[in-house]
Structures are given as structure tokens and as C-alpha cells.
């Protein structure tokens, strides 16, 4: 048993590195005859542009790929160990998003600061975001759940950066490339930046090895063995953040490696933590080196520049999907169950309050607006003239928000994972794939074609998810991880499209950020219909949903067939997210927010919680759509983005005020 497993890991790592080396040699050979390469590296002839390219572009690029890959792999392994969550990755903690936001803001409003060095600006942003996450999670001793929840900071930063990009697309063209993770180099600055950080960080990681291993038990056990749990966790998190920030700040977002390298290491048989960290670093380095060499070889033939970071995800996601389809290779520790929250004694009152608030916001969004003459409260004939523009948007937003929050709520109850949301399920990503495909085929597709493409994509993603669920009796984590890889692939495609500078990307960005601009009365009516159908069928699922979070053994004992219940809940969630995605875009922030708001309001049992989530989701979206139409008039902030701005601070405030236990 032990013998073959011991061979798998070195074989995988060695094979990966050999393959990468071969591709790299080919890339070098294409620029300069191989016998000349060593000489060019030692003392390049400034008169020979090929030698200069090898010495100052190809060689530093290779070095950067190796170091960045190793650092990301290590970062992922550290974060996952510290949080005991296989879905944790540098992006979860807001590092990439924070760095991206800092660069966007500085580029637009303080371009002089860029002269200080782009990497320092990004480093500052990444550290600030991660610091905020940690500060929010600190009152509860950095329990995995609260860190993940505080990752909302990441979502907020991402939303802000997307908004800036949407408003100033031309300005931020460079940031798109940066976001794609380009390894293109012109000197040795970047390797020189990464090398000392890699060395120092590795030393620190070795020191953390033993206490982190003990942390792999559970908190109580570790504490009884004398491990300062919070301190160790903080150190591991800080180190992971440091690694990821360094990479992100110089070469951009190459996020998938931080998630995939530890998973690959685990699949190849790395069990002990030290082994896993080493294997993650080697595999991360190998994957990035291989990807980058391939990108180098393909540049020119592909027609347009493809950022390596985007390709990494395109490479990595199918690998992860394949691994996930072999249940025995990937064993996942179940994440901690959602922490119980104080329940409100009278759920009906809470729900009635939510309904009233929703009605008030809908009325306001229909009647209050801005025009040529400034603000106005419209009624009578003026309102009649404006309703055809405002009505479909408000009601589509309502339907979209309600459906997404319902889907998110179903998923969170089913998996016990507070990160679960329609985005994680991959249905939104599937719909977006469809839209991209349509865009690539037809540069100016009509609305029906766009909708058709998105529907087809959502259906394919749904089928894939259901296949996974069948494969593994619906083990929720696997399904979620599969969704994450789908999402990563989709992100990669979008990034590649954005980085190519193709102006079609703006259309895609508009749809992705959750704009209700394109909503027609028919869309709104259909959406409300599906949302109502979802709500009406809730009583049928109510008992299941109360039992499912108790875990498979309890559920089985109570006579609940796990396979059927998971399948039905998954189908409902997927259908709701697909419908919402088609109407108002992949507004997944609301899918994450709605259920949390509902629980924070004290709605704990399944039915009230889901109803509350739907109401809260609808409310947030209508409010977001309305505010988005007003604040930057005549520009319109997409409802999905605005929802993030409104919802994230609320959630973080609630989080911060929860007493430590």
C-alpha cells in the first residue's frame, strides 16, 4: 500500500518538471540556437538582440515562473492548513483583489505614486485587504468560518476594481493584463524581488511546521497540547498572505495555482503537512513553468497575447475536475458546520418587517429618480412615462436577488459551508461561458442569441454538476470544488479576453457585474414567476432542509435518503441560479449575502430562513439597482456591484459586533 504511493509523488513532480524543462528548452531554442544560450546568459552581446532577449527576457521569465509557482503553492498549502478548508486560496483572503484595487485607485487618482513602484502599491493594497480580513476575524480567534466570511472584503475590493474598470476601461487596460498574471519580463528586477522573499518565507514555514501539524487535529486538542492556536494560525495566515502578495504584486493574479497545487499534492499522496508543503511548492513551480513555456511557444501563433495567469486556470481547472471525478484520490475533510446564531423569538415579525421594507424600496425605486432637471419625485403622467424604463429593472432586480439568495441559502444549508453560493456552484460560470462563446462567434449578437448561449451554458454546467453529484452520492464539498474550478476557468477566459484589449470585453464586463440594463418586462415577469415557484415549493423541502445540516448520519437515522435529498436540493438551487443568471447576470454576491443577512436577523429554521433570504436578497438587489441608477448619474452602476457595496459593509458590521465566544 505504502510503496506505490511513495512513488506517485516523486513521479508526478519529476514528470512535471521534466516536461516543463523540455518546453522551456524549445522556447529558448526558438529565439537562439541552443549552443549559444549559455554564452548569452553569461555575457550577452548588447549588439545581438537575440542574446539580449535570452538574457533579459526569457531567463528571468523562467526564474520568475519557478519562484512564483513555488510561492503560490506554498501559500495555498499554508492557508489551507491554517483554515482547514480545501477551498481556501490566496484569493479567498482578498489579497489579489486588494492589490488590484490599490493599483486601480492609484492609476486613476494618484498616478505619481506609481513611480514609487507598482509592486509596492499592490503590496500595500493586498496587505491592507488581508489585514482587514484578519482584524474582522480576530474577535473570534480566527475560527475558519469567520475568516472565510470576512473574505467578503475580497469581494468588495473586487467589486470596486471592476467598477473602476467599467467606468474607465481605456485607462485600466494595463490592469487587465496585470490581472491576467503576465510573466513578460525585460530585466531581472522581478526575480530579484521574489528570491529573498521565497528564501525567508520558506525558513519561516519550516519553523511553523510542527505547531501547524498539531493544528491539523481540532482546536481543542491542539490547545490541550499547549499550542497557541490563534497565534499559530495568525502566523501561518500572515506567511501565506506574504507569499501571495509578493507574487501578485509583481506578476499579477495567478490564483489557481494556490488552490490546485495543494490539491494535486494531496492527490499524489502527500499526507503529512511537511510533505504536502514541499510537494505543493514543487508542483506549483512545475505547473507555472510548464504553463509559461507553453504560452511562450504559442505566442504569435495564437494571434494575441495570452496572460500566463489566465492559461494556468485553463490548464489547471480540468486537471482538478479530473481529480475530483476520482473520489478515492481526493479525500476532503468536512468543513466545520455553520456556527449557530441566536434566533429571533418571533420569525413572523422579522419576515413582516422585511416585506414592508421591500415594498418601500420598490416604491422608492419606481418614483424617485434623476433627470435633466435634477432630482424628482415622479407621479401621475410623469411616472407613467418613466415606468417602462424603471419597472422592468426594479422587478428584474427583485426576482434576480430573490432567486440567487434562495439558491445560496439552499446550498449553504445543504453543504454546511458558508462560502457556498451560486457562483461556487458554477452555474453562473456556465451561463457566462455560453455568452462568451456567442461573443466569439458573433461580435454583435442580438439579445435572443445572447440569452440562448447563456441558457445552453447554464444547462451544460448544471448537467456536469448533477453528474458529479451522482458520482459521489452528492458529497457537497466535491460538487462545490468542481464549481470553483468551473468558475476559475471562466474567470481565466474573461481575463484573457480583457487582456487582449478586445473592446468586446466591456460588454461582457457589463453583464458580469450584474446590470439590469437589458431587462425587459418579459424577463422581469418570468423571473418573478420562477422565484414564486421556488418559494411555493419550499414547504415541500422544509423538513429536509432542517435535517440536512445535521450531517449524513443523523439524516440517515431520521430516514432521509441523502442521495435523493441532495439531488433535489441541488437541482432546485441550480435551476434558480440559472434563471437568475439569465435575467440579471451572475450576481452572485447576493447569493452569498441573502442567507447570511437572513440568519443574522435571527431566522434559524429552514422555512423562515429561506423566506427571509429571498426577501433580503430581493430587497438588497432592488435597493442596489435604484442606488446604482442615481449616485453616478447619468452613469449607471450595475446592480450586482452596487449590491456588493451595500451588502458587504452591513455584513462586516454584523460580523464585527458578534461577541467573541
Amino acid at each position, binding site marked *: 500500500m505504502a510503496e506505490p504511493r511513495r512513488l506517485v509523488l516523486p513521479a508526478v513532480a519529476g514528470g512535471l518538471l521534466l516536461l516543463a524543462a523540455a518546453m522551456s528548452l524549445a522556447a529558448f531554442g526558438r529565439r537562439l540556437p541552443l549552443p549559444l544560450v549559455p554564452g548569452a546568459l553569461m555575457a*550577452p552581446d*548588447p*549588439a545581438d*538582440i537575440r542574446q*539580449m*532577449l535570452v*538574457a*533579459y*527576457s526569457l531567463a528571468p521569465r523562467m526564474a520568475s515562473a519557478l519562484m512564483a509557482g513555488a510561492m503560490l503553492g506554498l501559500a495555498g498549502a499554508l492557508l489551507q492548513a491554517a483554515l482547514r478548508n480545501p477551498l481556501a486560496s490566496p484569493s479567498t483572503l482578498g489579497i489579489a483583489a486588494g492589490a488590484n484595487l490599490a493599483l486601480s485607485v492609484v*492609476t486613476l487618482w494618484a*498616478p505619481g505614486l*506609481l*513611480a514609487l*513602484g*507598482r509592486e509596492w502599491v499592490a503590496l500595500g493594497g493586498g496587505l491592507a485587504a488581508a489585514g482587514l480580513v484578519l482584524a474582522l476575524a480576530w474577535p473570534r480567534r480566527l475560527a475558519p468560518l469567520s475568516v472565510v466570511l470576512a473574505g467578503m472584503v475580497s469581494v468588495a475590493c473586487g467589486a470596486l476594481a471592476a467598477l473602476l474598470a467599467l467606468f474607465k476601461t*481605456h*485607462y485600466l*487596460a*494595463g*490592469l487587465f*493584463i496585470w490581472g491576467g498574471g*503576465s510573466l*513578460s*519580463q*525585460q*530585466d531581472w*528586477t522581478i526575480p530579484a524581488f521574489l528570491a529573498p522573499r521565497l528564501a525567508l518565507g520558506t525558513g519561516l514555514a519550516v519553523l511553523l511546521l510542527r505547531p501547524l501539524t498539531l493544528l491539523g487535529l481540532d482546536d481543542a486538542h491542539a490547545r490541550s497540547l499547549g499550542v497557541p492556536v490563534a497565534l499559530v494560525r495568525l502566523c501561518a495566515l500572515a506567511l501565506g498572505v506574504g507569499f501571495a502578495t509578493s507574487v501578485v504584486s509583481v506578476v499579477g493574479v495567478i490564483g489557481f495555482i494556490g488552490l490546485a497545487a495543494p490539491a494535486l499534492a494531496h492527490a499524489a499522496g502527500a499526507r503529512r503537512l511537511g510533505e504536502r508543503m514541499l510537494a505543493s511548492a514543487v508542483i506549483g513551480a512545475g505547473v507555472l513553468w510548464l504553463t509559461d513555456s507553453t504560452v511562450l511557444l504559442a*505566442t*504569435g501563433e*495564437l*494571434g*494575441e*497575447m495570452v496572460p500566463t495567469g489566465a492559461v494556468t486556470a485553463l490548464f489547471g481547472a480540468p486537471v482538478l475536475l479530473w481529480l475530483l471525478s476520482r473520489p478515492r484520490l481526493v479525500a476532503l475533510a468536512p468543513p466545520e458546520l455553520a456556527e449557530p446564531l441566536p434566533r429571533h423569538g418571533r420569525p413572523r415579525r422579522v419576515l413582516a418587517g422585511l416585506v414592508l421594507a421591500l415594498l418601500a424600496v420598490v416604491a422608492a425605486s419606481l418614483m424617485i*429618480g434623476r*433627470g*435633466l432637471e435634477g432630482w424628482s419625485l415622479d407621479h401621475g403622467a410623469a411616472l407613467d*412615462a*418613466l415606468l*417602462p*424604463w424603471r419597472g422592468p429593472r426594479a422587478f428584474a432586480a427583485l426576482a434576480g436577488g430573490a432567486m440567487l439568495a434562495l439558491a445560496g441559502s439552499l446550498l449553504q444549508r445543504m453543504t454546511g459551508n458558508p462560502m457556498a453560493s451560486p457562483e461556487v456552484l458554477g452555474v453562473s460560470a456556465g451561463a457566462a461561458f455560453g455568452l462568451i462563446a456567442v461573443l466569439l462567434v458573433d*461580435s*454583435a*449578437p*442580438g*439579445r435572443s442569441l445572447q440569452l440562448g448561449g447563456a441558457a445552453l451554458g447554464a444547462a451544460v454546467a448544471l448537467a456536469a454538476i448533477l453528474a458529479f453529484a451522482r458520482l459521489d452520492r452528492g458529497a457537497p464539498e466535491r460538487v462545490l470544488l468542481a464549481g470553483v474550478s468551473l468558475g476559475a476557468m471562466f474567470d481565466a477566459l474573461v481575463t484573457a479576453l480583457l487582456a*487582449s*484589449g*478586445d*473592446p*468586446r470585453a*466591456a*460588454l461582457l464586463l*457589463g453583464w458580469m457585474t450584474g*446590470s439590469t*440594463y*437589458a431587462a425587459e418586462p418579459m424577463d422581469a415577469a418570468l423571473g418573478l414567476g420562477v422565484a414564486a415557484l421556488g418559494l411555493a415549493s419550499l414547504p415541500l423541502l422544509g423538513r429536509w432542509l432542517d435535517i440536512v445540516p445535521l450531517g449524513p448520519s443523523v439524516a440517515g437515522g431520521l430516514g432521509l435518503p441523502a442521495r435523493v435529498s441532495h439531488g433535489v436540493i441541488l437541482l432546485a438551487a441550480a435551476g434558480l441560479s440559472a434563471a437568475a443568471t439569465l435575467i440579471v447576470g451572475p450576481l452572485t454576491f447576493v447569493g452569498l449575502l441573502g442567507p447570511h443577512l437572513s440568519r443574522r436577523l435571527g431566522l434559524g429554521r429552514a422555512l423562515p430562513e429561506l423566506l427571509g433570504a429571498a426577501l433580503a436578497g430581493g430587497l438588497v438587489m432592488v435597493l442596489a439597482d435604484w442606488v446604482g441608477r442615481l449616485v453616478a*448619474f*447619468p*452613469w*449607471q452602476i450595475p446592480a450586482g456591484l452596487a449590491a456588493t457595496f451595500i451588502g458587504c459593509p452591513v455584513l462586516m458590521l454584523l460580523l464585527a459586533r458578534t461577541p467573541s465566544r
Partner: protein
Amino acid sequence: MRTDGLQGAAFGPRVPPAAFSRRRLLAGGLAAAVFAAGSLPAGAVFAEEGLAARFAGPASAAPPRVAVLDYGLAETMLAFGLPPVALAEADDWETWVVEPALPEAIVNLGAAQEANLELLAALAPDLILSTPWLARSEARLARIAPVETYAIYAPGVTSPYEASVTQTRRLAARLGRAAQGEALVAAAGAQMDAIRARRTARAPEPALQGPVLLVSFLDARHVRVYAPNGLFGEVMARCGVANGWTGETNYWGFAAVGIERLAEMNAARLIALEPVPSDAAEVLDRSPLWNSLPFVKAGHVQRIPAALMFGMLPSAMRFARLLDAALDAPPGNRLGWAAPRQGMHAHG
């Protein structure tokens, strides 16, 4: 400084009688004096070319009220002396288009992809001008006013310049400005012919005749390089300037590449469009690879003010003039980054 006192009020939608008389003044040859008095170098060239005077001819009694969703179409309308009533992204005009200055009375419609429909409906224009890129909004826009689509950058359009000529004529005919349309097309052709004739006749030193790379810096490591099949690429060809980029391209006429890719091209000169990220110069100064590029060694690196790369004939003419001036400029310091920008940029 803005030109609102001169043009804005004049071309505002609600003051046709005043507009009429101002246009007469402009047509009467005062344009140059007015622009010069406004110390607007960018505008001054417009006046110098005689565009304002030539195209702002007497209008028919009630010009159509037009909302425009594309900068290229808007600048063409301005060249016809018929400013639109509303324009998408009007607030970014000065960063990307620069000249002609936008009359202040024009209503900003917000993002082109999501033009503000409530605002547009309140303005009730007679006509909306759009491009194939905005096709998804067409059905909604059509409820407010007839929508006409003009394709300059679209798959299958091989020459943005030829497309600009065709669509300029079409737009001119649609707006009852056929004569102004012909004049604009002729002026663009004549300007570029003149530049080409001058450049070939003067036969400057060989280095200055070599291929030119035209780029926009995206960051310190990447550029957007303009290929022969884009609007500016075609302008370069028409001005007798060889394009240094022979690599891949897209239907918008550019490629986004790492700077090291420029080393593969045998170019004699690099011209960078503003805006250039502030850290690019410093980072590149330190790069041995950048400093070994032939055009950097020779000091043939220049910045020119912003010009709309995805525009129509007025942008083509602006770029032709900026290109001509850049090619005549003597090699400055080694990188040319420190070249004074004052006076080149209308609002900078």
C-alpha cells in the same frame, strides 16, 4: 480652458439663431483668429487646416436633433458643424479625443454600453447614431428614436479608413450635410497626400525613413501596438510611413504584447500615444533589453498627445498631423521621455 464661450453656446441645441450667426462668423474666416485668441494649440490646428471654416457652412432651417453613442460619429458630426444634442461618455472626451473641443451644451449619456434611457427619452432626439458594438441596446433605443448603425470596426471590415470614408458620406447624406461630408473626405485625403509628398520629397536621413512602431503603453511591461490594418496604421501608410509591426492583429487593428516582442521587429522609431503610465519611463530606463533596442539607442522614441485610435476621419487627420510633427522632431535625449508636453496637449 474650454471653448464653451465660442463653440458651446453657438452649437447648443436651443439657440439656433445665434448658432447661425456664429457659424457665419466662423465661415467668414474669423476661426483662426478666435482659436488663436483662445490660445488653444490643438484647436488652432483645426482652424489652421480650415476645417471649422470649411465644414460649418450654413445649415438647413431645422437640423435634426441627434444623440450619438460613439466618439467617432460625434467628431464627424462636429466636423459637419452639426453638434449632437447628447453623447455617451461625454466627460471622457478630453482624455481620448481632445479635439475638436466638445460644446458644453451636449448632454452626457453615461456609458456607451448602457446609455441612460430615462435621460435619452426625456431629450426625445430625432435620431440615435450607434455602432455594431452596441447592438444589444438597439431594440431599447429604437423605442425612443430611430437608430442608425454605422460600422467602422467590425468583423469583415478590412479597412477602417475606407469604412470611415463610406460612413462619413452616408452620415452626411442622412443629416443633409452631403457637401460637408465630401469636403471632409477630400480634406483628409489631401492632408495625407500632402504629408506623403513632403516626406518623400525631402528625403531625410535614412534612420528617419525606417519603419515606425506606434504604441500605447498599458503598463511598464506591455504595450498595445497598432498594426497596418487599423485606422492609424492606414494613416501611416497614407503618409508614406512604414509600419514597424508585422505581427498579429485583430479587427480593431492592434495587438497587446509584452515590450520584448518589439525587439523582434526591425523598427527604426517608436512613437507612443499619450497617456503613458507614469512609472513606465523609469522602469524602462533601467532595462538593459529596452536600452539595447535599436530605436532606443538612436534616441528615436517620442510621445505624442492623445488621439482617438478608434475614431473616424477627424481623428485620422489629427493623428496624421501629430505623426508628421513627431517625425520631424529632432532626436532628443536618449529616451525622449523628457520632451516638453506643454503646447502639444490642448487641456493637459
